[in-house]
């Protein structure tokens, strides 16, 4: 009996080790953030890439930096390419979590400015915007971040993402800081205090969200009178769920580029680079992604393939850019930890 169990255990252990061994030869694994974005990446990139090269692409979700850190440190790297916001791509690059991208293979002049970083190939830009339900406010809906802070004019709960990144910028805009000066003000200690003081004025009416699904369902249920949101999730849910959500672009918005980064120690670094090259060489696929998500594509050539309806709902169109400002990666790389702590303390009170 004892021997039999022991044998079984040995066999199981052997099978487990064999499994680990073959992991080195696994398929390219690309990790995104789930939801509509991931579906769009599947249709626009994973499937065409597999078709063109005959190589399968595996998927996973939620590539948080913490998990990448533990993978790299333990040497058990199961992800190859991860979708990171630019600030995280920079932090991870500094900490040696990502491989440097071989930029000699890619012509950066074919892209919008400042979308790439040493370790990150920027492939779409999202807008962080003010959204509300057009059925609730057919006209005279909120049109500025000042409205966001005006609970007399618009009673009800407001949604903010549970991170200071974005919330502080919005607070300053609501306090009358022009969008182009937001980071100039935020870089001073008084500016940070001013942002928190502004948030404090509607503390009881703020309800934080943690995911795109959360702000969509709360907006749909009328729980939120308005919310800070990602433009793509708002635009896509209008189409898929027959909603009439509106985006107040003119209120001011920040935008952030998502980049593909190759995880250090990945057994598939060459193939990961091949995948990036594949996207680079196919601007029509980037356009496909944008047409599905309403997030701006980064390559200039892709603009020719966009549908007019999508084009006018993107964060990076020229006539809109005067309302927007790029999220300041340098500021957030430096201050994310300390401001997150302060933000948590503020929220938890």
């Amino acid at each position, binding site marked *: 009996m004892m021997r039999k169990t022991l044998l079984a255990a040995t066999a199981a252990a052997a099978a487990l080790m064999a499994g680990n061994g073959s992991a080195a030869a696994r398929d390219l694994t690309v990790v995104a953030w789930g939801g509509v974005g991931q579906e769009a990446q599947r249709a626009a990139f994973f499937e065409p890439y597999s078709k063109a090269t005959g190589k399968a692409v595996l998927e996973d979700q939620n590539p*948080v930096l913490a998990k990448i850190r533990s993978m790299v440190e333990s040497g058990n790297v199961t992800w190859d390419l991860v979708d990171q916001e630019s600030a995280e791509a920079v932090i991870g690059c*500094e*900490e*040696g979590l990502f491989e440097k991208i071989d930029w000699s293979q890619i012509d950066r002049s074919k892209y919008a400015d400042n979308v790439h970083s040493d370790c990150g190939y920027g492939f779409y830009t999202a807008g962080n915007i003010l959204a509300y339900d057009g059925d609730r406010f057919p006209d005279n809906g909120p049109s500025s971040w000042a409205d966001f802070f005006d609970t007399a004019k618009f009673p009800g709960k407001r949604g903010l993402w549970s991170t200071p990144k974005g919330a502080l910028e919005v607070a300053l805009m609501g306090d009358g800081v022009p969008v182009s000066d937001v980071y100039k003000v935020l870089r001073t200690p008084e500016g940070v205090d001013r942002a928190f003081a502004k948030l404090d004025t509607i503390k009881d009416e703020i309800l*934080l969200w943690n995911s795109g699904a959360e702000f969509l369902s709360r907006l749909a249920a009328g729980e939120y009178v308005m919310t800070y949101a990602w433009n793509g999730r708002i635009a896509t849910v209008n189409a898929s769920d027959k909603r009439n959500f509106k985006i107040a672009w003119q209120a001011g918005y920040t935008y952030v580029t998502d980049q593909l980064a190759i995880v250090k120690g990945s057994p598939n670094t060459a193939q990961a680079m091949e995948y990036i090259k594949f996207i680079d060489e196919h601007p029509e696929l980037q356009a496909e992604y944008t047409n599905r998500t309403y997030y701006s594509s980064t390559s200039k050539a892709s603009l020719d393939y966009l549908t007019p309806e999508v084009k006018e709902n993107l964060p990076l169109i020229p006539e809109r850019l005067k309302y927007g400002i790029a999220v300041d990666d340098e500021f957030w790389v430096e201050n994310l930890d300390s401001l997150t*702590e*302060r933000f948590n303390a503020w929220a938890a009170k």
Partner: protein
Amino acid sequence: MAVFARMLMSKGLASILLVAPLALFLAVFYFYPIAAFLFRGVSTEEITATIPATTVLLREWDGEGLPPDSVFAALVSDLNASAQSAAILGRRLNSLEAGMRSVVRKATAASRDLVAASPERAREGLINADPKWGEPPTWQLIHRETGTLTATFLLAAIDIQRGADGMEQRGEDALFVPIFLRTLVIAVSVTLICICLGYPVAWVIANASPRASGWLMLLLLVPFWLSILARTAAWVIVLQGTGPLNSLLMWLGVVDAPLQLIFNRFGVILVMVHVLLPFLVLPLINAIRAIPKSYFQAASNLGAPPASAFIRVVFPLTLSGVWAGGFIVFILSIGYYITPALVGGPSDQMVSTFIAFYTNQSVNWSLASALSAWLLGGMLILVALSQRVVSPMIKKVT
């Protein structure tokens, strides 16, 4: 412990061998990982591993003024050895003092040109890169965090900030102490409400006919088998502003505008009570069933009216069941974080939310482990208290 030892003496080797596999399993897969995680709360290894040479020299330094030039030179060579380590050092120091990330980054950049420089040049070069390297508090911070053990995180977890001029209790911006208190308040409220709601339910089930009690048990347990996420989501739908409950209240004219029933403390406690109620009811049913029916009759025969028979005879006998169930509910609710995250507002989050935050998001495992240590410590004290104080009291009553 004493019980364990006595058992070993009396039953001998066989019993040791019988429990050995389980003990070994628990030690390897349970106690060791917990201990290792908790150790991170006092360990300095995350920092010392990034600057090994500097650490050795700093441990000999007395902490007065600026360290000797040799320490500057050691830091230069450490920063040069690995860009990754330098970045980790920056992140770790930045979590202790805002702004240190760029101070370290500038030093890392400068150190590339200082590799072969003399110690004096190393010192000048680093101070040139950022004047902070010429200020004693910067070095005292690194000195403190490269000792054998550090209390920084355990103190930070109870809002005590360690700075250049000693310790300072955070007043206005205190974070964790209010959250620990809030966690306690929520857990106690949930437990008391569970007892008030669960006692009659347990009483009815225990005294019903076998057939009826079978059905009642089923009703009690069905929600128990559903995923906690599904149950919580269901509550969101019921309680939201446009949900059925608010619609009903408004239709009846009880309220004019929708009541805020969710994303606040009310919602958190309501959903937690719903989820945890079976944990109280099940042990209580057993306790009530264990009381012979004749006790109640005996009390009545001796002239006690039903109420007083219940209060003076039956209720004391169920106290152990109330205690057992209440204790389970309390312990479980102390660690809750999914429910507050889904149905609570920002000011209803409990300690576990922050442990999860520091583990998964901000990757400050030292602080996460320090918070866990306080939570676990508090819990162990409560367990010990219940063993010492409350259990004998109940025994005395019964």
